[in-house]
């Protein structure tokens, strides 16, 4: 836990106005940051010699309907050298853009495509933002809260187009 305080202290030192919220729950630290500064914060966490968060474990989206801004993007980072984890949260509105972190961690490429596919979150500066898990021609974004689990036409028989 002392090492995690090191991360949060260094972040507070370098970006004093950007920490919108922080908390610890069950031993894990979470930091909420604004979406305009996500790339700088991630670059700092990646390249600082004491922190070295080289592994992007996960990047996912969250739908908080009916709150505004509607979506959240959650980043899980891991430092192999210090055996530390940290979670970053960013709030994004429905038709707003958030900068992609693909230039820092290449694994964000597919994670951001998945967030776009399932939620409709738009990423700026992404080299190839298109659907990954669902087929082209699918309408809607299934993991949103107002999309039915069974799909819109569950009671009709399915006819594939060959």
């Amino acid at each position, binding site marked *: 836990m002392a090492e995690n305080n090191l991360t949060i202290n260094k972040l507070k030192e370098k970006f004093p106005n950007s920490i919108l919220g922080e908390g610890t729950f069950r031993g894990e630290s979470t930091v909420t940051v604004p979406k305009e500064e996500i790339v700088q914060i991630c670059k700092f966490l990646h390249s600082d010699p004491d922190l070295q968060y080289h592994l992007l474990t996960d990047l996912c989206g969250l739908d908080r309907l009916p709150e505004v801004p509607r979506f959240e993007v959650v980043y899980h980072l891991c430092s192999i050298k210090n055996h530390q984890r940290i979670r970053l949260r960013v709030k994004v509105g429905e038709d707003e853009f958030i900068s992609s972190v693909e230039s820092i961690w290449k694994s964000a490429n597919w994670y951001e495509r998945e967030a776009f596919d399932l939620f409709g979150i738009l990423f700026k500066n992404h080299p190839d933002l298109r659907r990954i898990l669902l*087929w082209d021609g699918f309408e809607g974004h*299934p993991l949103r809260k107002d*999309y039915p*689990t*069974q799909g819109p036409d*569950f009671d009709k028989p*399915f006819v*594939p187009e060959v």
Partner: protein
Amino acid sequence: MGIETYLEKTPFLPAVDYIVNWGRKYSVWPVTFGLACCALEMMVTHISWDIGRFGSEAFRPTPRQADMMIVAGTVTKKMAPMIKRIYEQMPEPKWVIAFGACACSGGVFQTYSVVQGVDQIVPVDFYIPGCPPKPEALLAAWVKLQKKIEGETLADRKDVRGSLEMKG
């Protein structure tokens, strides 16, 4: 128009049927179509439960050389056109077994992207329930399939019957 049109008028048809069905039922060659978890139980039937003793030693990778398709695993709407295409590439006579709960009726997954049963796409001859079914269940279906093939007759083939009716 094929030898069946002449054979139907002669008393030799049951004998020819018997020999042809004997050959077909003891050498059913499936096409490898494992999609998800049930594919592992299908592979195990091949190896540990020795499906070779039923004549199906060779699981063909290409549908052109196979006469049976075992759909093992969840069928999604993205994969459905490929299943239909592979079914159409198989030559007659062909049979389909739906192996596992997901292929029979969608299984646990009642969601926006899963086809609720492969019989919405291709006609199915046998349904094997289970999640996943034990390999012995697949062998039981094999034995039933052999009995079904025994009961078939050459004159009942779809293309032949159509042309026989045309001739009057």
